[in-house]
């Protein structure tokens, strides 16, 4: 099961977050900070799956943006990895130039909600 879906930039600012399980609001910021720290410390040759507390993080980097998905043990990690890419491709087709932090992406947050 997917626990959360985050888009965080390299400086640690959350661009998008969606939690599928209830997490306290102050815990969310802490979680996001830790998660981005884990992802930033990885090098290019390391794998995209990190074991974090009792779930796994699957992350993918697109220029300055990290997309991180938290999953539990029942999910297929590779399929989620592919899902992230699929998501980015869809956004790309819909909004064009997703990778850079353009306002287009975020200002269309209403449309983004439809994807949930």
């Amino acid at each position, binding site marked *: 099961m997917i626990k959360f879906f985050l888009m965080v930039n390299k400086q640690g600012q959350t661009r*998008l977050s969606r939690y599928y399980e209830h997490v306290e609001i102050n815990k969310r910021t802490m979680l996001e900070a830790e998660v981005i720290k884990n992802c930033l410390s990885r090098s290019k040759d390391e794998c995209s799956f990190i074991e974090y507390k009792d779930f796994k993080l699957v992350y993918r980097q697109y220029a300055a943006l990290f997309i991180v998905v938290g999953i539990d043990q029942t999910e297929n990690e590779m399929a989620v990895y592919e899902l992230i890419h699929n998501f980015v491709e869809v956004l790309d087709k819909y909004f064009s130039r997703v990778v850079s932090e353009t306002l287009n992406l975020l200002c269309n947050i209403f449309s983004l909600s439809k994807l949930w």
Partner: protein
Amino acid sequence: MPAPIRLRELIRTIRTARTQAEEREMIQKECAAIRSSFREEDNTYRCRNVAKLLYMHMLGYPAHFGQLECLKLIASQKFTDKRIGYLGAMLLLDERQDVHLLMTNCIKNDLNHSTQYVQGLALCTLGCMGSSEMCRDLAGEVEKLLKTSNSYLRKKAALCAVHVIRKVPELMEMFLPATKNLLNEKNHGVLHTSVVLLTEMCERSPDMLAHFRKLVPQLVRILKNLIMSGYSPEHDVSGISDPFLQVRILRLLRILGRNDDDSSEAMNDILAQVATNTETSKNVGNAILYETVLTIMDIKSESGLRVLAINILGRFLLNNDKNIRYVALTSLLKTVQTDHNAVQRHRSTIVDCLKDLDVSIKRRAMELSFALVNGNNVRGMMKELLYFLDSCEPEFKADCASGIFLAAEKYAPSKRWHIDTIMRVLTTAGSYVRDDAVPNLIQLITNSVEMHAYTVQRLYKAILGDYSQQPLVQVASWCIGEYGDLLVSGQCEEEEPIQVTEDEVLDILESVLISNMSASVTRGYALTAIMKLSTRFTCTVNRIKKVVSIYGSSIDVELQQRAVEYNALFKKYDHMRPALLERMPVMEKVTTNGPAEIVQTNGETETAVLETKPPPSGLQPANQANDLLDLLGGSDITPVIPTAPPSKPASGGELLDLLGDLNLTGSPVAAPAPQIAQPPFLLDGLTQPLFNDIAAGIPSITAYNKNGLKIEFTFERSNTNPSVTVITIQASNSTELDMTDFVFQAAVPKTFQLQLLSPSSSVIPAFNSGTITQVIKVLNPQKQQLRMRIKLTYNHKGSAMQDLAEVNNFPPQSWQ
């Protein structure tokens, strides 16, 4: 009041903030504006304000005052309002807030709305945050929508149904009829969500699982179509048609095929087909293969298929992509229990992964390597693992060290190799070794009697250079204390004996005592070791006395207590000192958790513990332990068994307390679980003079009578510990020739504990002219019927004889 700014503007403004404080200020200003706008009940801009509020919530700021506004938006007729309202409800509301129930009516109306998009919104929201009450109320509507022909709505309804089932499992049956036609859809969206719904139902209820097994052929057909069909632009991902659906179907097949032969058989073909036909050049293909492998391993597949699966994993291991290697190692770990031999074939690749740079991969490879160690490959594997231990990150060292100890204990080809391996671990990762490893190691060392000289020499050399690694120093001090005489006499067969004087040994122990790096526990070990050396060394007794008396005024209470007691030993009880500080007897393995259990065989009812006494020739210290027994038996002090290590200072205290303290500190002070079972028992033996027991009038039995050898058991029950039975065996020989090298061994069922004390001799003279006596103590806490299997070996008339027998005729009073 001017029109509130748009979300776009807000984002731009927040982006310009350079510090956290600036951002907070901006947001607070905007929140205030939004709040006043809400108070004015402004319908036109409510949507915009709530959108901004949601953005600020996402950044981590509280937004609870917007909840009611969301409800108002949901109730509005405009689609744009409803959209933001539902989004807000999903993000801000959940069953913890009371207001959420107000939504129920709105959702109900919207579920029946004319526009499918509004219906979709309502389904989404219900499926996201619906509470159990809401679900109960609205389940009927959801079920109706599940049967509609509109695929857009059908797929959303299926996901909403998943949520309803999670919240209110009793409603599962309600959705059962609707699922009949779900798999007949052409639309992949509906198919996908239907498979999710079916998966959820099967996982939750075994009845559903049995019911849905009949769908296996249909699922197989759908999967086949996906693979065989040509290029379909709307479902294509890197050349594979809808991989996400394929993965979902494979997972559902896994759940359906588990523990069921028929379904597994129906799936065999399609699984083989997927495994062989999927393209592996892209990540998508590998994702599908991974899921296939997991499915094959989980269902009752035929062996050919399983071998195929493991080979796929082996291929993954050789792939350059890290993700794939990680995934392969994880799956191999899951399958190594069941398909051990197949995984062994990939052992060399797995061992190579230990050298990888990636932390996750290294951890997986390490766990897998430990699972693969067996009697044949232990030497090679250990070499690799020790090399890994040298170079790995600190977070691995503790686990690696424990794993190495366990594996070495199970598969050590020789005692010397075992000790060498332990030494290597202690010297490389000494400070990361777990605390409970120290007593286990000490027990291991005492058990390998012939290696004592070699062990103590190596340990001495190890701490000569560096005494900062606590577990190493603890083990070394203990050994030096026990076997110091072997060290100075230079009698080592295994390697070149080193010349060490008694003073040098004391130097190193004193430096351990003084050093700042030594923990309190380590210091305790060192002091006790110095004390023990007072009986083993000849010329440095005065130096030892001086050291001991210095610590009598140490600040550390533990050290002080020990030093004072040892001082008393020197002064008042000097006559007892040699006996008390004698060599420790071989420790038994207690049946508690940890390495001890590995030595046991399976099966509760089988006799599991075989107790042997070392051959009488090496028993000189144990005989003196017997003298100790007599010593105590002869005294008039009433037996007091300390149940916990005595904490009162014992300067000139009772003999028993002194003994109790020494006994407990003779074994490792860390007092882990294995040892806790021992002290009461050992002390029981030593402080319970046999002569004190009430002769309970239990009849004696003849346990064995064959070939002229007769063994009789006489019983005594200990009056302080009613579950202990003391059996004295008497072996007599009625033939014309003596029986020599007589060894008596006994085994009892697992629920008992056995302790064999040393026999009186190993020769049974002929013509019944004398007997061998030996004492056995049996601890029987569950008061089960006593049974014993005995093994006798002896030399008679020039040939070696051996016999096994079972003793079943124990009188009831001996164990009740």
